[in-house]
């Protein structure tokens, strides 16, 4: 984990969250409730709630520059879907989003001047958020802003950033545009920015509350959150979707959806055989869910497509079961779990459902012979 300290004098004078929250008519109790929720979201022990609360009482608004390169703006959209905290509060009370092509009022020269102003005034203090990959092919002409290539802009703006956040799969791993044959040579940010921490927050898009959580962590501690060895915040990316999936008992019992319109789909059985990539995907979908906990892909009957994993667009077909795709397990190497996953899925899978877990199947006593784990792929 890299720590990145920075001086805060410059934005000392600004009102703190606590001022703002009190000002908005919330009580100290409301404030503490909010602080504990946020602490839970960023994966802290209860003992740290006090620290979150204290930080929010005393920290001024953090200058943030948010650049867009090759992307579809789904990350910005996901960010404004955050419910804890809601984005109006983030924008007005917690950060100073000084440059964002999606939300800022100014365009053209005025937008560029706002960027320049923050670069100078908050040198070494601003957080740089990047949405999108950088096309390094054809001398960078496939993404230009203000007549400059995205590479040139990235160099200029990252130089004095306190930390860099790579939002979404585009910035973290190149996402769809880097899929074969990667015609524009789309390149993720960590391959281009050297000598400073790059926090990868993959997903297409990442969950809104995850994005808010990463920012709140930085605000609270003045350091970036603890990262796994791939550079992702451990709090949100240390578990496979499969490990937190509520359909997991069906997987363990060998009860599978064979086709999207079969009875097993209605019963909510495991989606592994219709292509679920949950066993190789590290993300918080099963825990935090999407859109204020409303649902997540598996809950709505669709397999996980693995959108937060590197190279997921080229890792086999979406509706083909995972054991048959190349490289299965190799990308799931986040610390120790991945090695376990490789062993469990790569080796034992064929026999897994039939032999190992017949006992578990008995536990689900209303569900008997259905979903017998055959070896026939649903999609050939």
């Amino acid at each position, binding site marked *: 984990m890299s720590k990145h300290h920075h001086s805060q004098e410059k934005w000392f004078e600004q009102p703190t969250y606590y001022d703002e929250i009190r000002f908005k008519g919330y009580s100290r109790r409301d404030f503490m409730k909010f602080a504990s929720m946020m602490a839970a979201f960023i994966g802290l022990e209860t003992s740290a709630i006090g620290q979150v609360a204290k930080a929010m009482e005393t920290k001024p*608004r953090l200058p943030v520059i948010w650049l867009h390169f090759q992307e579809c703006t789904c990350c910005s959209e996901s960010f404004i879907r955050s419910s804890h905290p809601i984005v109006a509060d983030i924008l007005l009370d917690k950060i*100073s989003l000084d440059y964002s092509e999606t*939300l*800022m009022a100014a365009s053209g020269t005025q937008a560029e001047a706002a960027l320049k102003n*923050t670069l100078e005034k908050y040198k070494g203090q601003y957080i740089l958020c990047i949405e999108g990959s950088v096309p390094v092919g054809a001398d960078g002409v496939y*993404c230009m802003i*203000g007549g400059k290539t995205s590479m040139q802009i990235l160099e200029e703006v990252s130089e004095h950033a306190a930390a860099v956040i790579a939002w979404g799969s585009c910035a973290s791993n190149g996402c769809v545009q880097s899929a074969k044959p990667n015609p524009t040579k789309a390149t993720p940010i960590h391959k281009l920015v050297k000598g400073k921490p790059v926090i990868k927050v993959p997903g297409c898009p990442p969950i809104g509350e995850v994005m808010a959580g990463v920012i709140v962590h930085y605000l609270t501690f003045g350091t970036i959150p603890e990262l796994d060895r791939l550079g992702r915040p451990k709090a949100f990316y240390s578990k496979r979707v499969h490990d937190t999936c509520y359909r997991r008992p069906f997987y363990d019992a060998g009860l599978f959806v064979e086709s*999207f319109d079969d009875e097993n789909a209605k019963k909510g059985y495991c989606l592994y055989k219709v292509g679920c990539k949950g066993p190789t995907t590290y993300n918080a979908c099963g825990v935090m869910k999407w859109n204020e906990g409303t649902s997540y892909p598996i809950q*709505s009957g669709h397999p996980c497509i693995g959108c937060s994993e590197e190279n997921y667009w080229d890792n086999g077909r979406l509706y083909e079961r995972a054991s048959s795709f190349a490289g299965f397990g190799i990308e799931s190497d986040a610390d120790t779990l991945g090695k376990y996953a490789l062993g469990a899925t790569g080796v034992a899978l064929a026999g897994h459902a039939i032999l190992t877990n017949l006992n578990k199947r008995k536990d689900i006593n209303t569900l008997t012979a259905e979903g017998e784990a055959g070896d026939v792929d649903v999609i050939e």
Partner: protein
Amino acid sequence: MGKRIVVDPITRIEGHLRIEADIENGKIKDAYSSGTMVRLIEEILKGRDPRDAWAYVGRVCGVCTSTHSLTSVRTVEDALDITIPANAELVRNIMHCTLYMHDHVVHFYHLHAMDWVDVVNALKADPKKTSELAQSLSHWPKSSPGYFSDIQARIGKFVASGQLGIFSNGYWGHPAYKLPPEVNLIGLAHYLEALEWQKEIVKIHAIFGGKNPHPNYLVGGMACSIGLDDVSGINAERLAMVDRLLTEGKQFIEQVYIPDLMAIASFYKDWGAIGGGLGNYLVYGDLPTKGIRDTASFKFPSGAILGKDISKVYDVDLKKDDEVQEFIKHSWYEYSGGDDKGLHPWKGESKINYTGPKPPFEHLDVKTNIHTLKHQGGMAMPWK
């Protein structure tokens, strides 16, 4: 030629857009637009499983999220002669209507409003007068003088902090802003309310498609199973939630968005004469009730309007070679059979050929041609 101004980035849009305009005697004489980012998803799609295409295609845009995916699954179903179940059609229509509602509100408030609403001027409003005005426009309950003075105080403090965030360097105080302070304050208050509102309505996408942005689609239907009494899937509780979200969404549109639209537009009537393109409009139609092949069953009909003459709507056959064509003359692409020809999208080619200036550059070469990198915006799509 007078003075050339460049506006790049154009903000509050999806993607990267550049405008260059020639100014003469304080007026725009000519203007050129150029899309300056490309990913070539068309090339990446080649050779893929058609059932997977919706996921790739959906990533064209995360603001109008879901539309490209929907179009993609329909295309594959059309090619394979698949008819989807009635429930899947209804679910897709509900999801599409959800986007329709979400996208209009977000475009109006978060993408466009700052062109009309002067945020800083809103601080001069009289909250009492604002409240009276708001109540004369609509029954929306959040309209008390206290509500507006709270918003004003919050934004006042924000502006006084000197860290203007997304409002930094805006055009505040420019004479092109025409709203009185009270209308500016209503616009600003509803900008913030709409920011909260928009995250609610899209929960419908999460219910049926698992998440938003980028909900999941499926060739052949939808993946969510439906049964009122089912424990899993779309059951009575989930449908009740969809009903509530749609009802609340509609209330906001009827009581906030439309009254604001009318109120703000009444101050910018002269803007009605600006733009409008060439006056020819093409709509593909949507919300099928008997499958996508039966265009007569669409709740939003298809058709073309020529020369702004709305008295006549022409039929459109999207499958006819001579009715829909893509031209690349003004794009950084090339066609194997010559760049002057148009091609029906089914015969489309996506070979990129950048001939613009080498970055960093000051101006595009607009004398020969203005070009654009982006396919969907950059390709001309004439009809007949």
